[in-house]
């Protein structure tokens, strides 16, 4: 049975972890001679104080939602997909090919086409490690992380030698045609009278990401496949005994996971840069792991955690811009959040559990045992 009530599990544990991370970050900032309160103020005003800041926060959050969902889905089948980085990079390639070589009449069709291509490329990149795991027993953690490097090299080659327009020195594709440009939040919110910053890159992909969260929730808890996936995650041998094919589940889970990671590309490649550049993913694939850990692999948790990390990213960028706090320190702060919410989870959880147990004992001095009903 649960030691803690549900609300403590989903709200209290992450919250306390965050506060601990914040305290240590503040100490670090103090140690280099800066003012932590001013730093927090700057982060908040930079990330949430204007529609421009919100635009960037939501833009980053959209990236993290996709990669977070990708990791979360795989987690449910106890598969650790740390190849989000490579899958998103390949997704970018898919989006670039779709946008550059198909003459789309309207952005809505282009969006559907790009979604299909991004998911297809990302899924393909995840399917290879999945196959190796299911058929050859190569550990998926090793193969997915190695596929990140292969993806980076592949993109290097393609951008330098194949997709770079002649005469350009920059290893990047040409700009996507006008018709493929996705509407930004500025354009989406204008008809309902909200003026949103024109410069911020948040775009319609945010809605796609929210939709993906809902679909993943439905998949995991309301379909037969989701049930099989969770059963496989809880006990492989039991799932096998129940007639669930490990090969099928590994493949399908990783294909969904890779597809979700690939979908990130419609945000950063199609929505923001409108061309494919080197290193377009910018570490979002790895942040996705932290987002999934913090969100307890639940789509709603992923949604909230993605926005938090979007805030950290945008606020951190503002800090780097307007203070002498070095950029590396922003990474330290992010790492502390990841450490406390992910790796040191039990450090917060166990004292809390003990506390709740103590409270419960204090309420009913004699822990009552339920009478065991004789099974007839």
């Amino acid at each position, binding site marked *: 049975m649960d030691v803690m009530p549900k609300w403590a599990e989903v709200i209290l544990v992450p919250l306390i972890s965050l506060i601990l991370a914040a305290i240590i970050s503040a100490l670090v900032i103090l140690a280099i001679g800066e003012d932590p309160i001013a730093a927090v103020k700057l982060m908040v005003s930079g990330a949430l104080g204007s529609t*421009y800041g919100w635009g*960037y926060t939501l833009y980053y959050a959209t990236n993290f939602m996709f990669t977070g969902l990708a990791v979360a889905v795989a987690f449910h089948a106890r598969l650790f997909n740390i190849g989000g980085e490579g899958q998103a990079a390949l997704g970018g390639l898919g989006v670039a090919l779709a946008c550059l070589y198909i003459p789309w009449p309207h952005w809505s069709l282009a969006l559907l086409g790009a979604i299909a291509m991004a998911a297809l490329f990302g899924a393909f990149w995840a399917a290879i490690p999945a196959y190796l795991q299911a058929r050859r027993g190569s550990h998926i953690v090793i193969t997915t992380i190695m596929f990140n490097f292969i993806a980076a090299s592949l993109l*290097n080659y393609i951008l*330098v*030698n194949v997709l770079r327009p002649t005469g*350009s*020195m*920059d*290893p*990047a594709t040409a*700009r996507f045609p006008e018709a493929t440009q996705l509407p930004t939040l500025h354009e989406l919110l204008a008809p309902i009278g909200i003026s949103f910053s*024109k*410069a911020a*890159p948040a775009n319609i992909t945010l809605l796609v990401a929210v939709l993906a969260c809902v679909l993943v929730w439905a998949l995991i808890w309301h379909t037969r496949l989701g049930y099989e996936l969770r059963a496989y995650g809880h006990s492989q041998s039991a799932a096998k005994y129940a007639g669930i094919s490990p090969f099928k589940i590994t493949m399908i889970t990783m294909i969904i996971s890779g597809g979700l990671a690939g979908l990130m590309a419609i945000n*950063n490649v199609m929505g*923001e*840069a*409108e*061309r494919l*550049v*080197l*290193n*377009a993913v*910018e570490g979002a694939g790895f942040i996705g792991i932290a987002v999934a850990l913090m969100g307890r692999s639940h789509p709603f948790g992923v949604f909230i955690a993605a926005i938090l990390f979007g805030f950290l990213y945008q606020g951190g*960028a503002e800090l*780097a*811009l*307007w203070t002498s706090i070095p*950029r590396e320190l922003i990474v330290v702060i992010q790492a502390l959040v990841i450490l406390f919410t992910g790796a040191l989870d039990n450090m917060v959880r166990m004292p809390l559990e003990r506390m709740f147990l103590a409270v419960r004992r204090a309420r009913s001095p004699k822990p009552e045992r339920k009478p065991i009903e004789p099974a007839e």
Partner: protein
Amino acid sequence: MTLMQKFLGAAAGLALTAGAAIAEPALIYDLGGKFDKSFNEAAFAGAQRWSEETGGTFREIEMQSEAQREQALRRFAESGANPVITTGFAFSSALEVVAPDYPDTTFVTIDGWVDAPNVKVIGFTEHEGSYLVGMMAAQASETGTVGFIGGMDIPLIRKFACGYAQGVKAVNPDATIIANMTGTTPAAWNDPVKGSELTKAQISQGADVVYAAAGGTGVGVLQTAADEGILSIGVDSNQNHLHPGKVLTSMLKRVDVAVYESMTAGEDLEGGVEVLNLANGGVGYAMDENNAELVTEQMQTEVDAAAASIAAGDIVVHDYASDDSCPALTF
């Protein structure tokens, strides 16, 4: 008391209007990093000189990845910085999109090419400066083999290599020039380890002078050359001091002057194209106490004569970027 109040009020008012009137300039360093001892650091030096002379402050940021360029440009423009100065050709594409959105801000691209009314393009005749250091390399070489190590393989760096090769051939028509590039991506600007490996490879082929035009990668080239006892040539900034007595000279590309002048012009800076060349001191070679012993009187006389001829137009150094070919070197 009332007088004091008035006085303070006036001072505060003055301070406020002053703050509003002067927009800070901003400087964005490209992927080699601010302290690459070369290209980006030259930009920083120019900005610092401006700051010391005028007491003004400037904003700056280092790029960490390719995808950040547009965001950095927008941030600075959004916050009212003017002018916004970028180093490196790679900003061209981002500027093409961002510049039209901020017509009141002047952007500066050093090495880039953007056709917009509010973008100032500053280019250098690197082939001319490289020609001069090429001459010096050939004069200093005893083996008749000299090396060139470029950063990212782009026409701009081939322009350096081609000018260098022409200078070498002008002194010694039989000289061998070994040219290598560090890579094909911007990571090649900051890979001193590979720079060092390439230097060793060139030494094993007989090179006894190497010229690095590779940003931060050049640090590794100069280090290895010094360790192995051969001469090296620095680039962009004066790098003679890095290994005194081991660096023959440095090809100066006065990025610092470009930044300094852009910041001095401030908000009044206008778009357009400016080429800094040998005649107006935009490129050249470095002489100081660190390399005084390495450069003989005769070398300096010959190089200065060539510099005068180039400035006067008597010697025309072929520009690789003009037709993507080089008469003195094949890549």
